[in-house]
C-alpha cells in the first residue's frame, strides 16, 4: 500500500499524483501509440471506433456524470457535429478548420438548448433532451439541401494539407491525439472552479446556490462543453462510417452513449473510457457471434438493443459504480491484502434529507 507524503499543494493539482501514475499511464500511452503496428486494418478500425465512442462518452460524462443532468439526446449532438463537418467539407473548408467549427456549432446548439433546459431537473430534463434528439433527427431528414435527407450523404476521406488520409492507422492517430487533448481539457475543468461547481450542482443544488454558485450558468456551461466534445466525436465519426444517414444518430445511439458511461462508471473520466472499450468491443463481439449463433437467434431484430438493456440493468443492480468502481474496489482489496474488510465500500443511508426543498 502506498502512502503519499505531501509536501506541496501542487501535488493535489498535478495529474500524476505519484510515480505509479507516470508508469502505468506511460505504459498505456505507449500501448495505444504502438497498437497500429501490431494490428490489422479490421482491429485498427475497431479501436478507432472505441476511441470515437470514448470521446462522445466523455462529452456525455461532463453533463451527466459530473453535473448530474441525465441526457438521452446526445446522439443529436453527434449528428450536428457530423453533418456540419461533412457539409463544410463539401464546401471546400479544410479538415482542421471544419472540425472545430463542427464542434463549436454543436456546442452552441447545446448552449441554446441548455438555457431553457437548465430550469428543468431530473426526469423532465431527460425527456426534454429526448425530444430534442427527435427534433434534430427530423431536421436532418427534411433539410435535404444540406444533409441529403433520407438519401444520406457520402463523406470523403479527410484531406490534410493536400494529403489524403486513406489508411486506417493514419486516421487512428488523428482520433487518438484529439481524444487525448479532450481528456486533458476535461481534467483541467475538473481541477478548476468550474469543475467543482459542476460536482456541487450534481450533489446539492441548494447548497451550491447558498455558496454563490450560479446553478443555471454552471449547467449551461456543462452543456456547452459536453455538446462540443460530443460534436467533435460526431465529426470524427462521419469519416469513420463514410456515409451519413439520419438513422445512424437515432435514439439507440443516445442510449448506447448513456449505457457506456453508466457501465464504465458515472462521474469519472476513466468511466467514459472503460465504457467505450466495453461497448465498442461488445458490438464487435456481437457481430462476430452472429455468424456462430443459430439464425433464429442471430438474426433476431433488436438483439443489440436487447443485450444493451440487459447489461445496463445488471450493472445498475450489481455494480452501480460501473467497471471503474469495481476496479477501485479490487485495487483496494489488493492494496490491503490480506486485511481487506468485506464491507469497506458498504454505505449506510443514515442521514435522511427530510427538509429538502424542490
Amino acid at each position, binding site marked *: 500500500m502506498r502512502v503519499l507524503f505531501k509536501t506541496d499543494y501542487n501535488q493535489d*493539482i498535478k495529474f500524476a499524483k505519484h510515480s505509479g501514475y507516470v508508469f502505468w499511464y506511460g505504459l498505456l500511452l505507449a500501448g495505444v501509440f504502438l497498437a497500429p503496428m501490431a494490428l490489422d486494418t479490421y482491429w485498427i478500425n475497431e479501436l478507432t471506433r472505441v476511441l470515437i465512442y470514448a470521446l462522445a462518452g466523455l462529452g456525455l460524462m461532463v453533463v451527466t456524470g459530473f453535473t448530474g443532468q441525465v441526457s438521452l439526446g446526445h446522439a443529436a449532438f453527434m449528428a450536428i457535429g457530423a453533418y456540419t463537418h461533412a457539409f463544410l467539407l463539401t464546401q471546400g473548408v479544410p479538415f482542421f478548420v471544419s472540425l472545430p467549427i463542427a464542434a463549436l456549432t454543436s456546442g452552441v446548439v447545446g448552449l441554446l438548448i441548455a438555457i431553457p433546459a437548465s430550469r428543468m431537473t431530473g426526469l423532465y430534463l431527460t425527456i426534454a433532451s429526448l425530444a430534442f434528439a427527435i427534433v434534430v433527427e427530423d431536421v436532418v431528414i427534411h433539410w435535404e439541401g444540406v444533409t441529403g435527407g433520407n438519401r444520406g450523404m457520402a463523406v470523403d476521406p479527410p484531406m490534410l494539407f493536400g494529403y489524403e488520409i486513406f489508411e486506417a492507422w493514419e486516421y487512428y492517430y488523428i482520433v487518438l491525439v484529439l481524444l487525448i487533448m479532450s481528456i486533458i*481539457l476535461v481534467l483541467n475543468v475538473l*481541477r478548476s*472552479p468550474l469543475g467543482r461547481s459542476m460536482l456541487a450542482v450534481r450533489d446539492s443544488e441548494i*447548497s451550491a*446556490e447558498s455558496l454563490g*454558485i450560479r*446553478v443555471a450558468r454552471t449547467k449551461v456551461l456543462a452543456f456547452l462543453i459536453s455538446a462540443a466534445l460530443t460534436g467533435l466525436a460526431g465529426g470524427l465519426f462521419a469519416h469513420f462510417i463514410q456515409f451519413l444517414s439520419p438513422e445512424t444518430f437515432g435514439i439507440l445511439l443516445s442510449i448506447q452513449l448513456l449505457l457506456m458511461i453508466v457501465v464504465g462508471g458515472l*462521474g469519472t473520466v476513466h468511466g467514459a473510457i472503460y465504457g467505450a472499450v466495453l461497448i465498442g468491443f461488445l458490438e464487435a463481439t456481437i457481430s462476430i457471434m452472429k455468424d456462430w449463433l443459430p439464425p433464429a437467434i442471430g438474426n433476431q431484430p433488436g438483439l443489440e438493443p436487447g443485450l444493451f438493456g440487459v447489461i445496463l440493468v445488471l450493472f445498475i443492480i450489481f455494480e452501480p459504480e460501473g467497471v471503474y468502481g469495481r476496479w477501485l474496489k479490487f485495487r483496494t482489496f489488493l492494496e490491503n491484502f490480506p486485511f481487506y474488510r468485506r464491507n469497506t465500500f458498504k454505505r449506510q443511508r443514515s442521514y435522511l434529507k427530510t*427538509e429538502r426543498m424542490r
Partner: protein
Amino acid sequence: MSFFEIENLSLSFGGVKAVDGVNFAMEKGEVFTIVGPNGAGKSTIFNMISSFYAPDEGHIRFKGEDITEARADAIARIGIARTFQNIELFEHSTLLQNLLIGREIHNRVPVLRQLIFDPGVRRAELEHRRKVEDVIDFLELAHYRDERIANLPYGVRKKIELGRALCVEPELLLLDEPASGLNPEETEDMGFWIDDIKNDLGISVLMIEHDMSLVNEVSDRVLALNNGCVIAEGSAQEVQNHPDVVAAYLGGAA
C-alpha cells in the same frame, strides 16, 4: 441602521402562517440566537434570508441594503454564508473539494482560462488552497482532508459544513442547529468555535439552536419564536424565564 435587520417578515404556505410579522435586528459582532419549538418558523426565516423562499411581506436588510429580492446565488457574494439543519455537503467529493467549492465567490478566473489551466489559474488555485488550509487548521480537520464525505461520521460532517461556510469568508454566518446530533463533548467544542468565529474572525453569527447549554454559552441575545410570531427577546436568561416561552415549550396558560 442595524447591521442586519428583519422587518415585518411574513410567509404563508397555503393556510399556514409559517412566519407572521417577525421583526428583529442584530449588530455587527453579535451572536444572535433564535429559539422556539418545532414548526415555529425558524428555518423558514433562514430560507427567506437565503432567498430560497420569497417572503409574502416584509424586508430583509443587510448593512442597510435591501436583500429581500436578491437571487439565491447572490446572497453569498453579499457576505452571508450558511449551514443547513440536515447537512448539505457534496457527499461524493472529498473534504478538501468541499471547502474549495466554498471559495467559489472568490474565483475571478474566466472559464476559458480554466480549460487551459494556465499558470495564473494555478496561482489562484494555490491561493484558494491556502485559505482552505487556514480553515482546516482552525477547525482541526487536517486528519480528514482527503476523505470522501460519504465516509465520515456525522459530527465531522457538521464541522465540515461549518468550515465550508467559513471558506466563503462571510460577514454574517447563519447556523441552522449547529449542535443537533452532536454529543455533549462535540457540542462544547462547537461552542468554543462559535466564540472564536465571533472574536477571532470577527464574523457575526445568526443561529438557530435547541441545545440551551450552547445557547446560554455563546449567545449575546436570544429571540424566541412560536407559531411564526416573536414571543420574547433579550438575554438567554431573560428569554428562558419569560412566561410565554415556558408556556410555548411546556404548554399551559400563558
